[in-house]
């Protein structure tokens, strides 16, 4: 199966939040009691039952005001930090479509993925003792459909398609609008691409990591100290055996005398 990318053109989002509703509907996620906080953004953050959210920003002041409505959800990293941190095989899986999915039956609620994620996406439920997040509608896309959020989008902000086609579309659109493609890190590819409007930098957008990458602490943890533990324990055990073979046990003086010299 081919790799896919979800395309998000922030110049076209009107903040209608059809994607939020469609996500809830398809994934059978219950509604939550929310509070009005003076912003279009509602609920205030991603939750265990809200896997995508329109984040709202008002940039600038006076007459020079820009509104940014951003569809926020899992970025489906190629080299996903959440999977690297996860102790339970199968709980987080990189699929052949590029989507990173969680399988709740294997999740042990350790929360390591939440800390490792460079985009702060997974959310934890105390009641279930598990995490949940966007799956890129893996069940839909493996059956020839687009993700629920993309299907519901009526402005052309969201699109979904083969990887190369979506990369090309993003760069063409960025060129036409004078905007930028996010994330633009060849060492940390994602299966979600944003086209940011001209004159808006990732740093200005709330909850957007300006430099997404695999956290260094995760690499030190999993690529250095993890093998070191085996090398340390195994190496020291080997040296102890070698010591026992070459120098023998450290006998108490009296016991040594009893033995005497061996006949050669």
């Amino acid at each position, binding site marked *: 199966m081919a790799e896919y990318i979800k395309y998000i053109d922030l110049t076209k989002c009107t903040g209608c939040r059809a994607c939020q509703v469609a996500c809830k509907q398809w994934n059978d996620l219950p509604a939550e009691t929310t509070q009005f906080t003076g912003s279009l953004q509602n609920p205030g953050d991603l939750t265990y039952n809200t896997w995508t959210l329109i984040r709202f920003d008002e940039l600038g002041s006076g007459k020079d005001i820009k509104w940014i409505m951003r569809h926020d959800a899992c970025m489906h990293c190629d080299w996903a930090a959440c999977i690297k941190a996860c*102790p*339970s095989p199968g709980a987080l899986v990189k699929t052949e479509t590029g989507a990173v999915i969680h399988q709740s039956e294997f999740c042990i609620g350790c929360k390591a993925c939440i800390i490792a994620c460079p985009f702060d996406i997974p959310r934890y439920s105390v009641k279930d003792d598990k995490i949940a997040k966007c799956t890129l509608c893996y069940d839909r896309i493996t059956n020839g459909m687009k993700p629920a959020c993309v299907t519901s989008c009526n402005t052309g902000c969201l699109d979904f398609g083969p990887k190369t086609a979506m990369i090309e579309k993003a760069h063409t659109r960025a060129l036409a609008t004078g905007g930028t493609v996010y994330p633009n890190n060849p060492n940390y590819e994602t299966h979600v691409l944003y086209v940011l409007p001209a004159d808006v930098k990732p740093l200005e957008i709330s909850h957007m990591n300006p430099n997404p990458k695999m956290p260094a602490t*995760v690499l*030190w*943890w999993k690529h250095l*100290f993890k093998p070191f*533990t085996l090398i340390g324990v195994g190496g020291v055990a080997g040296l102890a055996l070698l010591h026992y073979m070459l120098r023998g046990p*450290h006998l*108490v003086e009296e016991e040594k005398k009893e033995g005497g010299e061996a006949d050669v």
Partner: protein
Amino acid sequence: MSKREGMVYVTTAEERIIHWLLAGSCLFALITGLGLMFHSWYIIPTMLGGYYATKWMHIFSGVVFALSLIAASAIWWKEVKFVPDDAKWIMQAGGYLWDTKDLPPCGMYNAGQKLFFWFVFVFGIIIVATGIIMWNPLPYPVVMARWAYMLHAMSVFVVASFFIVHLYLGTIGNPGTVQIMFHGWATRAYCTMHKGRWLAEKEGKTEAEAEA
């Protein structure tokens, strides 16, 4: 504790129980931790009833480790302070690696054992502190929580490696030692060789008490 002919009572029952709790919880936390860290070692979580159960066993053994570390530090605090003779012991590697002549007599613990205590104490505190953060990392700043995961693994590398040295020297490396952990008694010859200063102090005190 009844007297035994030619034997010396080295450790109290409290010391032995606390040492077993510390050693047992440390080993069990290490085994469950390795089972959670290496996906290829799924045999460990499988035998223990699954990954979810293993997570809780790891946390509970960590709690036992933390409590017994506090108790162990309290009972051994006086014994593990370094004395000038310890430098000589270290310079000669305790006579374990090459033949030495003038090893200074040790107190209750030799310099190597003291060193092991301080490594377990310092890195044990790091393991417990980071473990508490990892138990529920959500309230902490994400950078702090990420460091906790890394430091947890780093400290386990240090403690686990030293643990093997300790295990070897406490069992087959030094015949007559492991029984001190089980029932507390060692031969007089053993104590003269390994704990000379401690034995002299102990018996001097006994004589003084007898005189009084």
